[in-house]
């Protein structure tokens, strides 16, 4: 459990550092250094991950691709978390018709495959990074919303929330200062897991040719390009694939680890011996 968390954190850290320092780490330029003479070279001392069919260095493109993939993952998940938390907390807190509406919307969202929905949004907005962020940011908030709503439902009848109301605090203030801090833990966990799935979704959309447009490298469109080379130059597909795998695995382990650490039952009792109470 502890090991998983550390392992996940390590994977994520490597990917993040690779993305940040891509210009320093990449031996070649991911787009400009195309050289048809050196296309489809297997991994060697110069090209550690080989080259693709246009002779571009796969390692450099994986490093630059990490920037795109991580940015899409993190930004779209921030949008998702914000929407989900706002809808979930307000639905749970106010109840009534607003709650019914949000519940219905959540169920509809859960019923539509999110990738198909994202595809539809992309079809309307056209390809490109901004529309990808919007498409992925609008389609994956249902779980966040559900968790936020159910946590709020149990929190709002707690007497500290009633006490805040009695003291005259407004509803907005109570949601922000009393409820949100108490559900930040689970939201963080879902958010982390969501980054992993957003990275996958980006890869899938780019693979389908409607995500990040070439020549900008993303792990998804690198896979698309490498599709025809699976026999002649498998490294062009393996390394971006491994990068996706490692990133998603890393975020998932991180999320699981966070959940365990933030779970109050797993926390050791501080001060009073809670377990000793007769």
């Amino acid at each position, binding site marked *: 459990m502890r090991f998983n968390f550390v392992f996940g954190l390590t994977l994520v850290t490597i990917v993040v550092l690779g993305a940040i320092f891509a210009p320093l780490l990449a031996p070649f330029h991911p787009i400009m250094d195309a050289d048809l003479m050196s296309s489809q070279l297997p991994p060697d001392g110069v090209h550690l991950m080989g080259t693709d069919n246009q002779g571009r260095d796969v390692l450099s493109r994986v490093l630059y691709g990490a920037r795109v993939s991580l940015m899409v993952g993190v930004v779209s998940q921030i949008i998702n978390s914000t929407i989900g938390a706002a809808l979930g907390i307000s639905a749970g807190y106010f109840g009534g018709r607003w709650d019914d509406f949000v519940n219905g919307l959540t169920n509809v969202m859960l019923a539509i495959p999110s990738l198909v929905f994202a595809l539809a949004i992309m079809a309307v907005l056209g390809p490109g990074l901004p529309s990808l962020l919007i498409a992925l940011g609008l389609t994956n908030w249902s779980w966040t919303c559900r968790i936020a709503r159910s946590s709020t439902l149990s929190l709002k009848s707690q007497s500290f929330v009633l006490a805040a109301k009695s003291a005259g605090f407004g509803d907005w203030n109570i949601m922000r200062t009393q409820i949100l801090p108490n559900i930040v833990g689970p939201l963080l966990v879902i958010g982390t897991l969501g980054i992993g799935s957003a990275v996958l979704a980006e890869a899938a959309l780019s693979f389908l040719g409607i995500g990040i447009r070439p020549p900008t490298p993303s792990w998804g469109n690198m896979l698309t390009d490498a599709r025809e080379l699976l026999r002649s130059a498998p490294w062009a597909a393996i390394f971006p694939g491994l990068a996706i795998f490692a990133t998603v695995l890393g975020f998932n382990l991180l999320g699981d680890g966070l959940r365990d650490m933030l779970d109050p039952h797993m926390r050791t009792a501080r001060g009073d*011996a809670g*377990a*000793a*109470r*007769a």
Partner: protein
Amino acid sequence: MSNPDPLLSVRDLRVKLGRHGAHILHGISLDILPGETYGLVGESGSGKSVTGLSIMGLLKRPLNVAGGSIHYQDQNLLKLSRRARRDLRGDRIAMIFQEPMTALNPVVSIGNQIAEMFVIHRGMGWTEARLRAVEALDSVQVPSPAERARAYPHQLSGGMRQRVMIAIALACRPDLLIADEPTTALDVTVQAGVLKLIHELCTAEGTAVLLVSHDLGVIANMCQRVGVMDRGRLIEEQDTAALFSNPLHPYTRGLLAARPRLGSRVEGGRKRLTELDEIVPDGARGHDAPTLVTPRGRREARVAA
């Protein structure tokens, strides 16, 4: 009345939190005589529930028995195999808990939950066991028992659920019933009925009761003898009448004084209640207080110095 042999005899029972952790029970010694009702009273954290659970063999990790013995009919319960212990549990020694909702299985009808006791411990067939279950429900004064046997726990009120728990516990006519705060979750008028029921059934069957409670009123009404616990130690043990009229340990005196008594208020203003630490100086409740429980014969008082 000569001293009969005790039904259950606990000697120097020690319970720890974790293998190397702190002591939760610092050597408890007490005897329960056949057919008597023994009250164990104390505040939260005193170890009274842990004592009950240890006798039952239901301590949950990280709590573990670190020493001492629990003798029941010449056998040390702590030395028995898990299997032997399990056979004893529910059959010879039964237990009822504070919250009957969590102690009952929500997806099994109450009739079947009682019948299960006969099937497991008496080897009966289900048909006969179900008939006996209805009788058992009748004996705990559940109205229209044949119909109620088909009900599920959530369909019953708290008082009815606790009656069902009692029916399950007493199904096999055990020698000892451990009742851990059996009425704490119940309303006071319901509590009166449930306590009366426990008292009547156990007196009729000669079942001894270990009643664990924080409520001195309940203890006073139910028990022949009382042990007072404070932070893992038995600090006083007396006959009930003697304990309430002449408490020996300062902590017991403090507990009795801290509670307002119904009908005690007199005209003209409200009185301050006596607080525990006005009677027991902090030092006397220190953690290294010696556990000098002196067994000078069973019917006498025992007080921790």
